């Protein structure tokens, strides 16, 4: 099989193309726009069947996506950051319709202050909406995950929309060698979309997404959506095994890198986890017993796998590329919830916040986090949450502030 250099965005577009999507409601936003431009180009040139329609907002885009999916066609869409938040009402809404489709989110930090670069606060905001979430660490994964996502979404045990997440710039605009599956193999894997009875036809009228009165029916419908999402765990294991057998690439729900004998683990989501992977190798060279866990599924949350993989470790560093204001790292909290009360839970689970707005995490910082973990494990005291931010950076921001405040200070002099 030959490999081609593709950006993460074009990989996502290939995923949609190979899944044979019928309909692409779209709205441009950096750093996602390349996805819809690529699809529009293929559709215009006739290389790809399907219809792309640019809506006037992401809110409308997700509404149209849900509307088309409820009518019985295969739908793909893509957004990022502010767009995901603008669509938020409809993310919750269409998930409740139980309509399967795939949305690619290119993660980008949220305003304010507005930025173009990557972090995970956008996708974390969509954590509870009912969409399943697959987080990618490479361009190959973006393509493969898009195919997996259609199988997952359309499975009768799930029937929920799925978000495939990739990091802006670090993946979206970064080319990597990607193996593009043969069209017939991809089509064979994904299969045809069977809308079942969720569709609009003159001879079989139906009223979808109707209102309820009272908490009892509401509880039923909401909890069923939760149960369907939970089913996604075993369904995902099945289809990823089939994917692995078909294409020879393994994408487990949780990537466990050099974890077998490891005393210490990093836990991270997304493309920055490959930096952690590199740090693990260098630390192992230096005699450390350390590994990396990278959940690819965030919803449903692979709680059992994580619990099993974390059992018996001396210390764990959770590096969150997001920040829940007034609480801290979201993944850190979720992991603690999964571990609490289990006899083999690691005594130290430390929280680090890093990579906000695309800020890099250096190799030295990974090494230092490992040192911090070891000290904590030795003393039995979990360190307070730490923002990865250096004195140099603080000095720089002071300089910027001096410039920003200069004129006002001169006026007041």
């Amino acid at each position, binding site marked *: 099989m030959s490999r081609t250099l593709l950006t993460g965005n074009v990989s996502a577009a290939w995923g949609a193309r190979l899944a044979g999507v019928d309909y692409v409601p779209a709205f441009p936003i950096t750093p996602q726009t390349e996805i819809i431009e690529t699809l529009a180009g293929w559709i215009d040139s006739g290389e790809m069947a399907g219809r792309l329609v640019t809506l006037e907002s992401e809110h409308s885009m997700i509404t149209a996506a849900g509307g088309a999916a409820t009518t019985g066609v295969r739908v793909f869409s893509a957004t990022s950051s502010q767009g995901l938040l603008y669509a938020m009402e409809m993310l919750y809404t269409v998930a*409740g*319709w*139980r309509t399967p489709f795939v949305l690619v989110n290119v993660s980008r930090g949220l305003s304010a202050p507005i930025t173009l670069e990557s972090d995970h606060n956008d996708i974390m905001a969509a954590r509870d909406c009912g969409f399943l979430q697959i987080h990618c660490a490479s361009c190959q994964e973006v393509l493969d995950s898009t195919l997996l996502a259609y199988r997952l979404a359309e499975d*009768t*045990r799930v*029937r929920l929309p799925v978000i495939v997440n990739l990091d802006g710039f670090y993946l979206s605009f970064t080319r990597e060698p990607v193996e593009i599956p043969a069209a017939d193999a991809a089509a064979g894997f994904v299969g045809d979309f069977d809308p*079942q*009875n*969720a569709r609009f036809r003159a001879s*079989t*009228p*139906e*009223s*979808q*997404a*109707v209102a*309820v*009165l*009272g908490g009892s029916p509401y509880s*039923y*419908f909401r*909890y*069923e*959506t939760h*149960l*369907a999402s939970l*089913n996604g765990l075993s369904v995902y294991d099945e289809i990823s095994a089939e994917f692995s057998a078909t294409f020879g690439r393994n994408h487990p729900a949780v990537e466990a890198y050099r974890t077998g004998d490891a005393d210490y683990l990093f836990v991270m989501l997304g493309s920055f986890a490959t930096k952690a992977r590199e740090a693990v190798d260098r630390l192992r060279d230096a005699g450390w017993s350390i590994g990396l866990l990278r959940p690819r599924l965030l919803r449903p949350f692979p709680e059992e796998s994580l619990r099993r993989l974390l059992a018996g470790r001396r210390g764990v560093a959770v590096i969150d590329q997001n920040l829940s204001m007034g609480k801290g790292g979201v993944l850190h909290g979720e992991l603690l919830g999964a571990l609490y009360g289990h006899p083999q839970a690691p005594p130290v689970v430390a929280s680090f916040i890093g990579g906000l707005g695309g800020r890099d995490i250096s190799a030295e910082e990974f090494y230092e986090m490992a040192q911090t973990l070891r000290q904590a494990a030795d003393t039995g005291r979990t360190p307070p949450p730490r923002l990865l931010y250096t004195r140099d950076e603080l000095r720089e921001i002071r300089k910027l502030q001096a410039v920003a405040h200069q004129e006002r200070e001169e006026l007041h002099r």
Partner: protein
Amino acid sequence: MYRIRFHGRGGQGMKTASRILGSAFFLEGFEVQDAPRYGAERRGAPIFAYVRAARAAINERGIISRPDLVVVADDTLVPVPASGVLSGIGARTVLLINTTQNTSAWQQRLNISGPVITLPASAEVEDRADLPYIGATCAGAAARLVGVIARDTLAGAIRTELSALGAGVIDRNLENALQAYDIMQAHSGLVREGSMTSAIKYAHPDWADLPFDTARISAPTVFATANSVEVRTGLWRTLRPVVDYSRCNHCWWVCSTFCPDGAIAVDTDGKPVIDYDHCKGCMICVAQCPPHAIEAVSEEQAQRDTTTGETP
């Protein structure tokens, strides 16, 4: 704790009743909760409001399931299951009904063991949705039944709650409410505070483990068509339009088209037939009928005539 429910129709002032009683309790030094229950209720549709009052802080919230007193402003609601008037009524629950019928008739009809008291419907009005000042009247009667609210306190509560409505309206309400308060003298204190749910011996909730159902079943989708007809909106009606076929011109396209609910069908002879299961009693047909062949009659009267075999 006192737990009191007011039942009436949208437009009859049940929220006002609960607020007046709530204020009166509060002025007497009680801790209080009062609230209306909103849903898809419209004018004429059954609604309710409730009041809790206790000497200590109130931790209970939401709908009252075991009331100490149930006040019914509109007796046509009592036999309607959807209105929930009789929900949770026990042997010690006092049922106060605003009605022209007597206590024993109601006791027999409902086959309940608890005390039933009637509030003689003071002003008979054609349209029950316009029952004047009935909210305050109900609150006045309830205030006396609990026996811990002074007459002056009730008056103060009414003045507070109705302050936005102007002196004339307040005076009429005061007059009616105090009259109801006085009528209930013999029953003062009949309503006793209910106890809290015991944690020692209680009915265990029969929790189910929700099974996973596929989206075919568990999506909020209705595969039936036009099954809203199963909802009997005729219960909202306080006035009934009745066609006098001796005067009917058979110009069905007027009444049948204008009926917002499509509740006037046309039979094979071109005769309009009103569907009383669904007619909400808006009276547009009465207003529009060219030969004035449709008459508005009191729903209560119409029902009474129907049960006694008379045609209205």
